């Protein structure tokens, strides 16, 4: 134990006193989080809203006075799949039962707004145009999620359609025409937030980076410089060294996680941090560590190890669903993405941290990385050479 602690202390001190290691392991992930969050958060929110309409109107249907139909047709035209429409999905229905389903979808974050046209909408609009006495104002109700940017965008679209309707048929200013009732819902679980998505992705990236570069460096550079040889003529075992090195990297990774979480929360991320999500982070640490051992085992020199680590790191970063969702990527890329452990680690972490974005079930999020880790560990134990 004392020997393992001496290795741990030496390697940790060396890392802390190495500006380059500190930058890439601690500062870089936070910089990346800040940059990506500031660049892509708004872009993500400005496109692709999903709207549902429930047309409950039963009056003047399929007549010249079917005003409700004008509204729904306008939205359907807007949602035409020309690739430029901000409405990526439009669902229509006419029953109160459908409304219940849509509202649940809205709460679950599957759609961004629900518009309900009231039962006697057409007759009330007709009365308003012909200045007949009104028993009530025609009402369109819009349901949206509280504090949701995508819901706000969907609402703006619906609002502009109603304004256009008012101008065309009622020749009145909006506030004197159709009453617009807005109802807010709170999303079930959590709304999709890019900062949440990114923060969890950066955590997985950072842990993978420490493993790929930290462990590879501790093994290959020290082997190449014959530091390992010097250590092993002293009374320590290879197990002492591997344990000390692993503990040193784990400490760095825990510091990383803490700093990334603090930065993410400061950027507005809403993350559930509990025993289960922390346990999964420890699982991420444990399952990514063999990657460093693996790279060290297949590399003849520190330089080649570094090159292989860089290739793997890029692959995991950009195809592993760390920065962007991979469910809408081309098929071939999707196959690659779903072959990588980082996709599952990121999905698992997101699911357990309360971000409703896991396209894979939890058991796969554990099993796939575990299978990768087991293979790499087995290969490393068999193939790693302690001396060059």
């Amino acid at each position, binding site marked *: 134990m*004392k*020997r393992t*602690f*001496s*290795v741990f*202390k*030496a*390697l940790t*001190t*060396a*890392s802390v*006193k*190495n500006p380059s290691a500190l930058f890439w392991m601690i500062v870089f992930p936070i910089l990346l989080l800040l940059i990506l969050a500031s660049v892509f958060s708004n872009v993500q929110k400005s496109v692709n809203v999903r709207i549902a309409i429930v047309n409950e109107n039963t009056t003047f249907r399929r007549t010249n006075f079917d005003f409700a139909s004008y509204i729904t047709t306008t939205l359907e035209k807007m949602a035409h799949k020309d690739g430029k429409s901000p409405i990526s999905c439009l669902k229509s229905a006419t029953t109160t039962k459908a409304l219940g389903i849509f509202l649940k979808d809205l709460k679950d974050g599957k759609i961004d707004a629900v518009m309900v046209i009231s039962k006697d909408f057409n007759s009330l609009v007709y009365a308003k145009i012909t200045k007949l006495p009104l028993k009530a104002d025609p009402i369109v109700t819009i349901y949206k999620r509280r504090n949701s940017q995508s819901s706000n965008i969907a609402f703006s679209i619906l609002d502009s359609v109603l304004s256009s309707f008012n101008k065309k048929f009622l020749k009145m200013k909006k506030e004197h025409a159709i009453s617009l009732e807005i109802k807010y819902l709170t999303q079930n679980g959590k709304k999709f937030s890019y900062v949440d998505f990114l923060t969890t992705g950066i955590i997985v990236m950072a842990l993978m980076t420490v493993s790929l570069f930290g462990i590879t460096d501790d093994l290959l550079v*020290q082997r190449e*410089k*014959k*530091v390992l*040889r*010097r250590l*092993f*003529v*002293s*009374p*320590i*075992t290879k197990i002492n060294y591997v344990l000390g090195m692993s503990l040193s990297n784990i400490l760095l990774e825990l510091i990383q996680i803490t700093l990334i979480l603090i930065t993410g929360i400061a950027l507005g991320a809403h993350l559930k941090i509990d025993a289960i999500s922390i346990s999964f982070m420890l699982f991420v640490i444990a399952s990514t560590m063999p990657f460093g051992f693996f790279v060290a085992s297949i590399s003849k020199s520190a330089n080649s190890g570094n090159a292989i680590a860089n290739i793997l790191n890029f692959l995991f970063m950009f195809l592993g669903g760390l920065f962007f969702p991979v469910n809408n990527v081309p098929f071939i890329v999707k196959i690659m993405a779903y072959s990588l452990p980082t996709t599952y680690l990121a999905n698992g972490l997101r699911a357990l941290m309360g971000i409703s974005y896991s396209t894979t079930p939890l058991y796969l999020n554990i099993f796939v990385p575990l299978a990768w880790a087991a293979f790499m560990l087995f290969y490393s134990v068999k193939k790693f050479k302690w*001396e060059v």
Partner: protein
Amino acid sequence: MEKESILKVKNLKKHYHDVKAVDGISFEVFKGEVFTLLGPNGAGKTTTLEILEGLKKHDEGDVFLFGTYIKNGIPLSLKEKIGVVLQENNFIDHLSVVETLKTFRGFYSSGLRIEEILKIVSLEDKKNTKVEKLSGGQRQRLAIGVALAGNPDLIFMDEPTTGLDPQARRNVWDMIVNLKENGKTIFLTTHYMEEAEFLSDYIYIMDHGKIIARGSVQELINAFGEERIIEAHLDVDENLKGELKEILHEVEFGKSKVFLKAYDLPKTMKIFLDWVEKRKVEVRDLIVRQSNLEDIFLKLTGRSLRD
């Protein structure tokens, strides 16, 4: 009083494919002595040492370390009693001298205090310097300090002064002498005959994996170096060199130097000086010395130690 055996090696062999790196050597090292394996590069010294340090496994032969038979590596309990200075000493980058010493001290259950080690290796004023900033000599002193961390009984040193300047080399020698005076047993390999002569109680001369001679410095000289050497600076052309060789037979020419082997010193000296007088050759720095280990190695192998 009977001497205490620290290390005993019998018929040690190590092959690399067809190359016999160590070819059946035997020796015994006793407590408190400086034991030296002397030989040129490639003689098999480092391979022998690496087997004794537990870095390599031997193919044949018996090794007893502190009376324990060693076959598959050295147990940690014995490593606690050993200090090692490798031929190439690198340490974890970014650590200071004192952090490096503390790291290695942490591997031993008992040993010297860090301040003591710093004093022995004269690195007190460099204790906070990063190891990569140390000069070659300072780094070698640190390597000796690291070897002393567990206050070992036996210290292996593989060519500890190779690549050092004369002053740094002298410092390392002084340190080794001090260690010997403090009762440490030192197993040294070197290809510097001055180093072997200065430090060793017992020398084994090794070449092509075999021991070709052994004994104390004086025993070796008595056995193999009965002649004297006349050494002088001499500017002569090839004709005159040939002439001198015809007259004196055992003559060797270095870079502007001549070495004459003299079994009968007055006679050889007279012949040489008569030739110098007759040919009006300018002679500078004429000295007569006893044969040294370099001469003995040359005599035994036909090659120089530095070849």
